[in-house]
């Protein structure tokens, strides 16, 4: 459990209530607790750190604007932030694809052949591999391994059973490893 991430239901409900009323202190607390996680969640779905910073900031701005709509029903506000992050990333990528950035993105993310045997930047490999996963697979990997959430917490945040999360994470890890290997990245070569 990450510091500041409320998993006590009463505390989470209270924080959600205060956030819904636009209490600045609640938002400050939420921002401190959740920024790193939200940033990590979006980081490898985007082209680079500047985009991740911008989208992470938009997540909190969007959440703040729509705070009155948040209805606490046992799912912590973090789950709502993740949902917003997913939507913003999806919109962002759709827009880039329409503008032709997709090809450019693929180009920059796929290492040149001459690099395959040499140093390959982790972020490029990972970002390229992530493109081969389904959205649910991306989400489960982000929550479990980039945000360090347990299976139980991931299940709550994704509104799935723990068994479903375990199954999804297995498939996601396998798909990612396949993508990493096919991209020429093997553990230890970087």
């Amino acid at each position, binding site marked *: 459990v990450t510091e500041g991430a409320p998993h006590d239901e009463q505390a989470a409900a209270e924080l959600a209530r205060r956030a819904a009323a636009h209490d*600045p202190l609640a938002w400050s607390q939420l921002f401190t607790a959740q920024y790193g996680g939200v940033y990590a969640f979006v980081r490898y779905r985007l082209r680079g*750190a500047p985009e991740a910073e911008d989208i992470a900031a938009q997540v909190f701005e969007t959440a*703040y604007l729509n705070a009155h709509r948040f209805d606490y029903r046992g799912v912590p506000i973090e789950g709502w932030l993740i949902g917003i992050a997913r939507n913003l990333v999806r919109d962002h990528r759709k827009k880039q694809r329409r503008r032709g950035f997709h090809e450019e993105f693929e180009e920059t993310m796929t290492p040149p052949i001459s690099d395959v045997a040499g140093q390959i930047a*982790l972020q490029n490999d990972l970002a390229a591999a992530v493109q081969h996963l389904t959205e649910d697979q991306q989400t489960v990997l982000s929550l479990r391994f980039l945000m360090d959430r347990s299976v139980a917490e991931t299940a709550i945040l994704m509104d799935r059973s723990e068994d479903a999360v375990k199954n999804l994470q297995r498939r996601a890890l396998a798909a990612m490893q396949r993508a990493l290997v096919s991209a020429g990245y093997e553990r230890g070569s970087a």
Partner: protein
Amino acid sequence: MSDRLDDRLARALEEGAIPADASPAESEEIAQALAAMETLGAARLQAQAEAAEALPGARQRFETFMAGRQQSLPAEYPRPWHSGIAGLFRWSPRFRTYAAGTAALALVVAAALLVPVLFGRVETARAEVLVPGEYVQFEAVAGESSGEVLAAAAEFGDVDVIVDAETQLLDTEGQPGALSPGRRIVVAGVVGEDLRVRARTVSIAGADAEQPRRRPVQRLRDLREAIRGTIVAVSYSEEGEPRVALAVGRERLVVVAVAGDAFRAFLETVREPIGAAVRVISLGGDEGPFGLEATASGAETPVPGQEHPRLLTFAGTVTARDGLTLTVATLLRGEVRVRLTADTQFRIGDPSVLREELRGERLIGRLVTVHAVPDPRAPGVLVADTILVGREAERQAR
């Protein structure tokens, strides 16, 4: 088998080692997963470092954003104290008691004297008209642009309009136009989660316009008085339910949820909905459903100097289809040819229609509301921006 493997992998991820009771095949798959997890672990460290570096700037951005929004929020919670004399009182119980008493008194006074003004808070008004996910069309006055964001002043508040490479800018002749501050514009686009409008088209009028008058907004719940006004915004929910904002006199804006069929019927009587003068009619009791009826002036051409831009909105029935071109029969315009493109958006007002059927023959015979722009390459043909698909026309006659 799959469950067993899932459990063993979960155990391996916790312990960082392949369980001793795993079969060779399971061990192989778990080893692959652990390798992927190791890559993700390195990525997490990198993301954490980047996030830590970005945090101060991000916090400043968010605090600035919150401070800006706090101005239009109810004073249920104190605004953040930063520095200065006010900060000296931050932890003073006497000051807080005094402040609470003053606030309570102010609230009573405000409730007695200023209730109508509360309707006029820009944030409230904007939120009544702009709903995330909805298609919206509204008139406004163009302000300054910053990057892709155009500041637009509408009657229901200031709106950030995203104008990007996908946005069509059209002048009154339907030709590509240029935005400049002070021009009257009609924006059509989709409302984002942050209440910014991602513009699909911006139509630019020939003449400069005055800044819009800000008025209180009310949602029409019952029709106990006659309501006449001018349409300043039209929106559709994702389910295709239309809503209009009417400027009623100089005093207020009224948001009216209009029955789908009634709105289509209304569109068949006016050249354009934005700017049309209408009265609200009841289709049932005082509490709705509601329809619209164009008043005499509403059916006329727009006021001189405010020539209506060339984003066209009309309703009709799809009578034929030739490839990607539909023929839509309308009352005012006769038969109109409308070309579908990959960018055409559909809003489905009839739950029996499946999205994947939209490009097939099922559109023929259906009532549609079309937002379209002239096709510069083919005179007489319109390019569909957004189409609201309603039910089959023959059912209307029953």
